[in-house]
């Protein structure tokens, strides 16, 4: 990795933190739980990392510890993503007054 790439990544990191602070400043209490849940689903983006390592580490058909760890990460991240968005959607439907779930 070149130093310039690292600085680029750190720049993105810091700017995104500022962005996060600005994005949600005033949120009505109704939306706190769905917002937390939705944000949590977005943090499941680590699924990309799990996908990449699942693919590379299983190459050669002789999986070691690393491959199984990545595969387990893939399952957990998918639960986080699918479950997170589904649960948020359910809550938001209820708030909107539609009948959702039991």
């Amino acid at each position, binding site marked *: 990795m070149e130093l310039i790439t690292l600085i680029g990544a750190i720049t993105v990191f810091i700017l995104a933190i500022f962005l996060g602070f600005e994005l949600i400043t005033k949120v009505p209490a109704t*939306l706190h739980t769905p917002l937390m849940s*939705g944000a949590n689903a977005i943090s*499941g983006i680590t699924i990309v990392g799990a996908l990449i390592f699942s693919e590379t580490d299983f190459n050669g058909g002789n999986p070691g510890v690393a491959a199984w760890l990545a595969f387990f*990460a893939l399952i957990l991240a998918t639960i986080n993503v*699918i479950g997170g968005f589904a649960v948020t959607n359910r809550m938001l439907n209820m708030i909107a007054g539609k009948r959702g*779930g039991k």
Partner: protein
Amino acid sequence: MDENCNSLDCALPEIGYLVASILFIMGLKKLGHPRTAPTGNLYGAMGMLVAVVVTIAQMDFGETNNFILIISGLAIGGFIGYLMAVRVQMTGMPEMVALFNGFGGAASALVAASEVFRRINENDLPEGLELYVAWTAIGLSALVGWVTLTGSLLAMMKLKGGVEIFGTWYRTPTWGPEWLNYIKGLVLISIVGLLYMTIEESGNQDYVIAIIALSSILGILFVLPIGGADMPVVVSLLNSLSGIAAAFTGFIIGNNVLIIAGSMVGAAGLILTNIMCKAMNRQLIDVLFKSFGGSDKEQVTRTKVGSDPEEVAMVCDGISKCIIIPGYGMAVSQCQHQVREFADILEANGCEVKYGIHPVAGRMPGHMNVLLAEASVPYEKLIEMDDINSEMGECDVAIVVGANDTVNPAARSGEGPLAGMPIIDADKARVVVMVKRSLSVGYAGVDNDLFYEDKTMMLFGDGKQMMTELVSSLKDL
């Protein structure tokens, strides 16, 4: 990817990730407004879909079975996640968010572990700057990820109030000794030390295992002494941490979409945590490092004669303004539908009914709003604490359903664990009806003077049963 590639084909994945990042940013923004929130969630999901498709599209599967493997991983996780999301009861929502959160943190931590074990086993150790960046990111991702996992699991148990092991119910503690903070500090310092050691001796995986073990312990120590009343703050903070863990994972694989989404969620989670702390008039530092309530619960010595639903129904007859103040008890007994039925009858008789929502009522911000929305209570009737307090004086009857600390006047006194926490001024109403199982203290462990006031009527019993009886008594009038 080829370093000197300037064609569109090479740039396509990066453009895909950019689109995903934009969708995440817009999604998070829209999630903060009631009208646009469903769209926001959809944007987030679409962003995730784009990111996953772009990632898979880049892969060259060749002769291997990796494609099947990856699809099956996605299918297993997707199936479990969907099932959990669809089946969970609304009362179990905070636990569910805590659990998903833990899974997210664990996924980031496992990705980091996977990378470090692969590099050590294949003797593919990075050098120079790359070593520092990769190993620091792996260490931090492991630290934050494992803390998030064990912390979230413990938070989930604490939200339930205990854990069942081999048929025996163990209550989770809600306090811890002061010296625990020093131990936490020591553990954290050890982890930082180990992080340095992993870089010094990059081929030694023992240090990595030690980081994983210590981080897992740290997560437990971190959440253990925090009282149940503060759990929403902790879950929110852990949510923020799981975002940070994802961002560190982004540094490991050198992918901007992880860095953007992760750090954005981290920052947003911190804001939400702060909003909750403000609502409780507490400093985040106090919540995390000063034990609260629990250990020295006041013994209730006073008694109060309970009322029956008929009496309460008679009081409620012909009133012009009623304010309902729900708490965690409403969530536990699942009586939001009965509460709404009660409100409907009152409204049919020309009474104005509003709901006073304390910011930390329940076990999660907005918990009450979700429950009442489930019972189709219109959004405009849910009034936040500051606004409802100005109307409290003209309220004929305040019905407190399963709440205690959030209406405890002791909070105004400036002493004790509740000192300074803003409350809903239920005591300003002409009559206060409290639906509660007993006179026992709330999470903060403070006795409530409101119970013993002359204008207070106690309806002892399960929320659902009491509200049902109250509704039928009202109908019989």
